[in-house]
């Protein structure tokens, strides 16, 4: 077998050196009745070409040749081929967690650079080496707020990504947290009156997302004010990181939980991605996940090592701040390379293109009779429109033109029966947008 570097002779010689007559002898500690006496019933072994053939066949059964207007937490952005050229290097791809700092300086310095970029982007003082994704980063941010405040009530805006809220619920059930939802206002932002009414001195955190699930930008300053007036922390989740190329970062937030997928990671049917937790220096000892720190070696040279590890599972065991063991190192590296490639101006230009194209798309859709804009607060690259009929019906028609239509908001928000969340990025051409608008118009002209 091509992955096994042993010849039959070598196996024989090694067995002889051990003093065993057969390989079976080495498994004698497994009681015989539990040892399998026939091979597993798995598909027959494939050569490299056959493996590629299998996956190409699966690829052909997916969405080839379709143009998509989906966002809702996973975004199509340009990715440079340079990123893959770097992350595919064996020294990055096949290296272990950098516990032995002397022979992992490459990984450690890259993590340090990632932490720096994420702090700069989010306007926070410190960021960790990544979490599994935006949804678990948001949950960890809430648990962190619980530890910091000693309180158990959490107010979560309903305009936070539905799946992020579901994940929080799963974790909250067993930690004594009481999670309550705050409704959205007519313009799609958090209903500040409702938030104010719910605020008391027992709230650990207020959780919002910006831009939120409807695409709308929240007033972080005002929300932070409300939270801080009761000594609660403001957690801001960010699902579309490219927005930070154009929007003021949430500096007033106490903890930011961001999904970094938009920075150089392919959609890949939902994963793997990388979550980011960013916060204030004074909270760093309550921050879960890995951290790379700058230090010096015994000869005074700058180097990097994992630090503040006493928060982590391998030392504190049941008193750990979290049970997270891995970070998403390779994904974080992809984000780091991607952002270095884009640089200050490139990220800004990408963000501007997203916003301009989304505005253009909104303009084209608004011309269609019966289509109206919902939630008219400022947005970045996603916005909500209301159709005169069910979005599912419209989308079914769009598929015929090889267009994957907008996200059906009615699924997670039953009251938004005809609302669609449209996402436009720099990868969407003007032609595609015009074709999309034309197809929507045509779909709405069909008898139901």
């Amino acid at each position: 077998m091509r992955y096994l570097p042993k010849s039959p002779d070598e196996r024989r010689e090694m067995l002889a050196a051990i003093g065993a007559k057969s390989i079976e002898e080495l498994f004698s500690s497994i009681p015989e009745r539990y040892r399998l006496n026939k091979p597993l019933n798995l598909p027959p072994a494939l050569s490299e070409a056959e493996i590629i053939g299998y996956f190409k066949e699966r690829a052909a059964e997916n969405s080839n040749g379709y143009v998509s207007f989906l966002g809702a937490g996973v975004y199509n952005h340009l990715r440079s081929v340079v990123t893959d050229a770097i992350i595919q290097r064996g020294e990055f791809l096949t290296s272990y967690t950098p516990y032995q700092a002397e022979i992992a300086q490459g990984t450690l310095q890259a993590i340090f650079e990632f932490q720096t970029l994420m702090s700069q982007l989010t306007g926070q003082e410190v960021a960790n080496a990544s979490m599994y994704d935006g949804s678990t980063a948001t949950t960890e941010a809430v648990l962190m707020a619980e530890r910091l405040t000693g309180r158990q009530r959490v107010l979560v805006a309903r305009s936070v990504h539905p799946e992020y809220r579901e994940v929080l619920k799963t974790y909250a059930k067993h930690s004594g947290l009481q999670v309550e939802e705050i409704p959205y206002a007519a313009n799609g932002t958090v209903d500040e009156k409702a938030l104010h009414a719910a605020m008391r001195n027992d709230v650990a955190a207020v959780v919002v997302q910006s831009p939120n699930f409807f695409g709308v930008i929240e007033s972080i300053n005002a929300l932070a004010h409300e939270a801080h007036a009761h000594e609660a922390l403001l957690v801001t989740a960010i699902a579309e990181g490219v927005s930070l190329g154009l929007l003021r970062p949430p500096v007033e937030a106490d903890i930011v939980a961001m999904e970094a997928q938009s920075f150089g990671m392919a959609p890949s049917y939902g994963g793997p991605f990388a979550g980011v937790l960013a916060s204030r220096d004074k909270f760093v000892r309550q921050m879960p996940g890995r951290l790379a720190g700058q230090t010096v070696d015994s000869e005074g040279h700058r180097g990097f090592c994992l630090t503040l590890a006493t928060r982590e599972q391998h030392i504190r065991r049941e008193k750990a701040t979290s049970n997270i063991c891995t970070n998403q190192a390779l994904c974080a590296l992809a984000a780091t390379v991607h952002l270095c490639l884009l640089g200050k101006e490139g990220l800004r230009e990408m963000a501007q293109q997203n916003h301009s194209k989304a505005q253009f798309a909104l303009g084209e859709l608004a011309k269609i009779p019966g289509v109206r804009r919902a939630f008219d607060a400022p947005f970045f690259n996603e916005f909500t429109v209301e159709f005169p009929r069910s979005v599912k019906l419209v989308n079914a028609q769009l598929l015929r033109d090889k267009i994957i239509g907008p996200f059906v908001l009615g699924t997670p928000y039953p009251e938004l029966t005809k609302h669609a969340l449209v996402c436009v990025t720099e990868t969407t051409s003007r032609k595609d947008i015009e074709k999309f608008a034309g197809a929507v118009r045509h779909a709405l002209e069909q008898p139901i």
Partner: protein
Amino acid sequence: MKDKIKKASRHTNQSEGLIFEQSSPGKRAFELPPLDVPAADLTKTLGANHRHEGVAGFPEVSEIEVIRHFTRLSTWNYAIDLGMYPLGSCTMKYNPRVNEFVARLEGIATEHPYQPQELSQGCLKILCLLEKCLLEITGMDSITLQPAAGAQGELTGLLLIRAYLEKQGNSRKKVLIPDSAHGTNPATAVIAGYEVENIKSESHGQVDVEKLRGQVTDDVAALMITNPSTLGIFEQRIPEIAEILHAKGALLYMDGANMNALTGVTRPGDLGVDVMHLNLHKTFSTPHGGGGPGAGPVAMKKILEPFRPVPILIEKEGGRLALENVRPDSIGRVKAFSGNFGVLVRALAYILAYGPGVRQATEDAVLNANYIRKELEGVFELPYSLPSMHEVVFSDAIQKKNGVSTMDIAKRLIDYGFHPYTTAFPLIVPGALMIEPTESESRAECDLFIDAMRSIAEEAAKNPELVKTAPHTTRVRRLDEVGAARKPILRWKPAAPRSEAAD
């Protein structure tokens, strides 16, 4: 002594500062196609939300600088592609390149989790086949591919147990964890809302079955066991352990980190395990990438099936596959979307390469570990006599007599061109050397490792200072971890402007 170091030699490699230190305004590494719609009037559309300048401090460099920067950094790393990682319980095996290729295919890497399910049948078939293969390997009835890593898999497993017991009327209070366990086990139990009760191992690091009998009360929800144990020894009495737990209505959770010793040879489901997680980045070859991403699927017996996290893969009429997001008894969602799909693709590619012959990998892994054990027995102390499976644990007792610890030996191993073995655990063996070669190591690489370890043992006896101050040939020497923890510097900051510095 210098000729004893055969696998590594001195080498000139490039220095490299932080990318921010090379930044200069106006440099760019990436250009976008021109904007093909009118530019938005940002004052109108964004108002106060508009960030007027680019992100402060963001790098401005050219493409070649990015390539050189990260290429130089990469040369400072050790990696599986360079040689063995003898890390116990990490299973650092070869990461097949075809796995990388197929994960990047157009139509695989490009799919959006919310696209219509009829346009995702390829993705769903991949999930379906992987589920079937992992069930066959583990001998279980049902599985979830959602958890993003082993630790998250453990949490999911415990939440499944909790949900099952709750449905029976009493979720119970405690989880028993052997003192030999990996640190994620107790951390996870607490997050799942349970108290941790330690169970002491007997002299060979196995679960003490008589003690267990006494400790399993009606308050115990489960025992978390690793098999083989973290000493690399098969828990022979595991079926008995399962019976003791089941008799009291408790369940047996197995940490699947050491599955590399079992695949194709025995199945946890047959041994009485109720629920277990797998580490795809260990047993199933998905790359560590410097610390992630991984995936931690959880396989379970039928009784736990109704509680699986969403989404759940189902088969509809006509063989169409779909993901279901609503299940009344589900523990809920553990992660957004549908698992680390890219990692799952790689694991399936690995399984397809081996087919039923995957047993050979297990045999080679166990062969390598036992070969190393035989060759180093007597050179290092073996704290127990039971047979090892895919990993062997020695102790530094012999070397400690000269003041040389396992940490010192590990650091000196670096000079010989290897990554250290695991020193930090199992906690029940003081001064442990936990060595797992995996099946990916040739006899030649194993011999180089054995020679290196023998040489270091000799150095520990004749020249202990050399070992205690190692490594000597790395790019950086031993780093000041104390300073890093006392005054953490966790990001780059631009130098203060001159006038401030002068004050």
